[in-house]
């Protein structure tokens, strides 16, 4: 939303305007003004919105950036790297685990000297999963060889994004640049922000085109070899060049920020010093907290305390000399690190500051280190006062009582310590004997006997009520219907996603059976490890004392997103043929992070990264056929299912269990409704997936020891409907039945028919 008050413009030379937006919106806004060539991206909170806003602007024809939805952050970083070797401008945004997943690409990008700009919307890197803002991902960036610009508020996110590109492309630097802002505190809080009114002015500042004269993999007249094999006599010299370039980034940045200040009136000196001229006590913080602390400084000054604060606007290269100078006359400084360097007696910043003081002969100030605000724990003014108190006490006593500690941790009340609420489920209740699976003596399909579903309500549910899913969520009805077909004990592993997040919000868990969560993409590998440990410990007799009544059935639960980023590990586990089940709940998108497209999203469907506008009509390519990909690994059993056909799904679950206990890996996919993001009525969930089956978009079938059998044929039952009928039942696809999207509808319908006909041919012929 723009506010056009000319009088609010600063003293700068360029025409500006004011908007009221968040940090993520400003990163996207700057990128669209720059009009980068390529963005390779992958959803992760809280940075995902950057790609969403760019997609929305693209759908409305506001920029030309080619947005490439990668298969994971490793892929997105690869897309970006390749694109940057090809001479154009490249942009990305990520956070936390996503950043770590692409980490090995970072030193390659800097070491081979290809500029690009990436926003790191800082968030906790953790196990137990915490998605909120701290600097633990940022601290991994310190050794990657990327200059790092810091953003304390949405205004800085905008400004730094524009300066970052100029810094990256400078002939003295030629390095990729990281722009770091605080997840949620900055990325999701709306503020007034001043921007260039005209895109041309932005492009004039950064240069309308990237500078030439550097290696470009698209210049056929100057062939180059990028990324050779380089051994020890030479590699150290490459590093030295890179080190020199990094240090040159400081004066180059200083020059760029002055040019920017002259143009806009907004200045970002290397250090943001607040009331430090005569300060006796100081606090050093980074980004959003470094703003809050200024209010605290004002309050302390009003009380007569000579307080000041220091925050860096860039931390790579580290402004060691400037920090030492700023602290030369300070008696004591508290350095707050928003991430620990476990065992390092302080976070990364405090130790670098101590080194800076030592190097520059500034031995006067006492230094107190505190770790604060981890996992997005809010930083209140009262926390700022506490940090100052440590410095004030040290200045008064001349010693530091506790050089290193945490701030904001709490011991907890022993009376509220966790106590078991439910008894473990009884094996005899789980093993009802109501389901019978018998192998065929000739090696044909298994014979399954399933009772009326009424009888199976006797079996305890594996997941307890009280989980926090949306009303009408299709995940849990789908999972428990599947579990009705599984007898005895399970060990479950859930990929990151809605099902994981809403069942395990600490200190609660809805999983009555043992459950594991590891990462978004690594579940199949992780469960492989659990499975093989079970069999090996059992073989060694180490489980005898537990008197297990039966072998476990190991089940991995993933969304369709987890099968994108986790496709490699899933195929690996399938090729190794571990005795386990992979069950995918497919809701056609990354719903946990805000409904971004997945590869399973069908053509034309609206998601937050496949918007519908005058320039774009939803997703641009067809849905992934994961069941066929997994069938191609020649595992013993593959199936599809839906809660709309409950007997069919329970039978398949029973078969899945038999194969996972006797032969090897099973993969199954159930289509489930996400009313929130499909923009459909809660109560219609079952009928919508039923329509998906009846229009043959989601055929029900199984591939048993390589032989395909359709288990429900809507044509034979006279139930076949047109795809348009299914699409009309969801808000996300209602546009597809409009005349302007007729081509997309036809293309989608043809693809559905083609796959259905191929499936029928396989059903007819056991050799296909």
């Amino acid at each position, binding site marked *: *939303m723009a506010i056009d008050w000319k009088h609010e413009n600063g003293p700068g030379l360029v025409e500006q305007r004011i908007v*009221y937006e968040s940090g993520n919106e400003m990163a996207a806004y700057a990128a669209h003004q720059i009009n980068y060539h390529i963005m390779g991206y992958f959803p992760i909170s809280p940075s995902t919105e950057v790609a969403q806003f760019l997609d929305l602007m693209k759908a409305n024809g506001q920029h030309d950036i080619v947005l490439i939805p990668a298969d994971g952050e490793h892929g997105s970083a690869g897309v970006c790297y390749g694109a940057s070797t090809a001479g154009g401008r490249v942009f990305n945004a990520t956070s936390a685990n996503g950043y770590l997943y692409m980490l090995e690409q970072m030193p390659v990008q800097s070491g081979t000297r290809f500029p690009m700009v990436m926003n790191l919307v800082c968030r906790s890197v953790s196990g137990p999963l915490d*998605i*909120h803002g701290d600097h633990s991902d940022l601290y991994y960036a310190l050794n990657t060889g990327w200059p790092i610009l810091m953003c304390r508020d949405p205004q800085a996110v905008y400004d730094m994004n524009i300066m970052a590109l100029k810094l990256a492309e400078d002939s003295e630097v030629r390095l990729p640049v990281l722009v770091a802002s605080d997840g*949620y505190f900055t990325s*999701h*809080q*709306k503020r*007034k922000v001043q921007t260039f009114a005209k895109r041309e002015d932005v492009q004039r500042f950064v240069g309308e085109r990237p500078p030439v004269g550097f290696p470009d993999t698209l210049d056929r007249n100057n062939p180059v070899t990028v990324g050779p094999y380089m051994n020890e006599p030479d590699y150290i010299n490459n590093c030295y060049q890179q080190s020199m370039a990094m240090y040159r980034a400081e004066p180059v940045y200083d020059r760029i920020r002055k040019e920017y200040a002259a143009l806009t009136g907004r200045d970002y000196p290397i250090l943001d010093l607040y009331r430090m001229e005569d300060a006796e006590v100081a606090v050093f913080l980074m980004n959003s907290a470094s*703003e*809050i602390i200024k*209010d605290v400084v004002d309050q302390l000054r009003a009380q007569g305390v000579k307080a000041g604060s220091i925050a860096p606007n860039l931390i790579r290269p580290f402004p060691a000399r400037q920090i030492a100078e700023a602290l030369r006359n300070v008696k004591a400084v508290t350095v707050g690190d928003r991430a620990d360097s476990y065992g390092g007696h302080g976070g990364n910043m405090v130790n670098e500051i101590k080194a800076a003081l030592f190097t520059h002969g500034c031995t006067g100030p006492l230094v107190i280190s505190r770790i604060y605000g981890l996992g997005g*724990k*809010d930083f*209140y*003014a009262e926390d700022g006062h506490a940090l100052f108190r440590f410095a004030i006490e040290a200045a008064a006593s001349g010693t530091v009582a506790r050089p290193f500690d945490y701030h904001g*941790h*709490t*011991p*907890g*009340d*022993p009376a509220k310590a*966790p*106590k078991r609420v*439910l*008894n473990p489920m009884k094996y005899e209740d789980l093993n009802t004997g109501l389901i019978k699976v018998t192998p065929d003596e000739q090696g044909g399909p298994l014979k399954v006997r399933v009772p009326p*579903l*009424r*009888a199976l*309500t*006797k079996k305890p549910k594996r997941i*307890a*009520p*009280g989980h*926090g899913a*949306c*009303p*009408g*969520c*299709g*995940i849990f*009805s789908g999972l428990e*219907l599947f579990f009705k077909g599984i007898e005895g004990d399970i060990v479950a592993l859930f990929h990151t996603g809605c099902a994981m997040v*809403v*069942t395990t919000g*600490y*200190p*609660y*868990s809805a*999983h*009555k059976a043992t*459950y594991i969560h590891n990462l978004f993409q690594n579940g199949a590998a992780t469960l492989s490890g659990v499975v093989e440990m079970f069999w090996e410990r059992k073989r060694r007799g180490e489980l005898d004392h537990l008197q297990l009544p039966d072998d476990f059935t190991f089940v991995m639960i993933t969304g369709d997103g987890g099968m994108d980023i986790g496709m490699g590990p899933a195929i690996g586990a399938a090729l190794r043929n571990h005795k386990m089940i992979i069950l995918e709940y497919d809701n056609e998108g990354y719903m946990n992070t805000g409904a971004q497209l997945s590869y399973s999203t069908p053509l034309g469907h609206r998601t937050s990264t496949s918007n519908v506008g005058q320039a774009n009509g939803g997703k641009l390519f067809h849905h992934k056929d994961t069941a066929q990909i997994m069938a191609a690994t020649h595992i013993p059993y593959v199936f599809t299912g839906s*809660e709309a056909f*409950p007997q069919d799904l329970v039978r398949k679950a029973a078969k899945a269990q038999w194969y996972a206990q006797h032969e090897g890996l099973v993969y199954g996919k159930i289509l489930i409704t996400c009313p*929130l993001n499909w923009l459909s009525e*809660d*109560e*219609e*969930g*079952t009928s919508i997936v039923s329509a998906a089956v009846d229009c043959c978009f989601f055929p029900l079938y199984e591939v048993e020891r390589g032989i395909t059998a359709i288990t429900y044929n809507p044509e034979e039952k006279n139930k076949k409907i047109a795809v348009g009928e299914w699409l009309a039942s969801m808000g996300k696809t209602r546009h597809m039945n409009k005349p302007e999207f007729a081509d997309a509808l036809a293309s989608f319908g043809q693809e559905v028919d083609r796959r259905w006909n191929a499936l029928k041919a396989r059903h007819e012929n056991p050799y296909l």
Partner: protein
Amino acid sequence: MVQLPKVNDLGFFEIRLESIGGLGANLAGKMLAEAGVVGVGLNGVSFSSYGSEKKGSPVKAHIRFCSPDTRIRDTSPVERPHIVGVFHEALAKTVNVISGIHEDSLVLVNSANPPAELKQSLNMLAGTLAVVDATGIALEEKNRVNMAMLGALFRLCAFLDPEPMKAVIRKSLEKKYPLAVEPALRTFQRGYEGLRVEAFPLPAGAQMPAYVRQDTPVLGYETQPIGGTITNPGNSILKNLSISRAGMLPHFAEDKCIHCAACDNVCPDFCFVWEEQEDKKGRPQMFLQGIDYQYCKGCLKCVKACPTDALSGEREVDGYADARRVPHRFDLAPS
């Protein structure tokens, strides 16, 4: 330049909205903030609570207004609101929605109940209650609760101008949903006009309760098992999710039930309670006993799945769910 009625030490007039996901409180907060910043030239900041919250889960939106020349540095949540907007009355069962109010704070509640009754149910010592039947208005106008609440919030924020807001509502709807413009405007206006306000002064000698920081955990480093492992899984049964219902719930008529389990197959929240009994022929058989409303979020998938009239979707009235709840028979660990 407009004048804020009061401000805190840092110069902020602060508003906190308390809701469940799906009622549009986040959007209402955004529109309110933009009306202040863009509409009348205040400075401001607005944000929502983010996390694993889904539709139906408690959410908060925070808004700070200040004069145009006041620097905004604070990113912490609003703990001492001048106005609280409660979009969902039932929230007060599980969330202290009035945490941190001043004795002269305004508490706006979407409710059909009289202020004196709400003072009791909110456990409110003092403050001014403003009540609007936003749900009732929205149902009558076939529009959204957040429009009525937004109208009421504009009434309470007298420094904002409702006319530009109405223009924004008109503009955002008229192209795509022209028929929704008038109902939305009427809903907004009825919210604006439909307030009942009653002030409750602080009793002599009493003090307003101190707030508890929103980031205060139950467990701590001396009590939580290492590694974040949850050693009492299944404890989610202790949660009360009835606040997730936004107005509807299923009714169960046992006499019409054929015990087919179609409801059980589609229920996302495992609300159906079964018991093994003897059928007419003396054989053991499962019989549906009823619904555990503590976990029912009111999606009504079961009503759709039911092949008879045993389940029906109805407007929720106070006390129905508590009276008709059939609790699950969990195998509880000895305490």
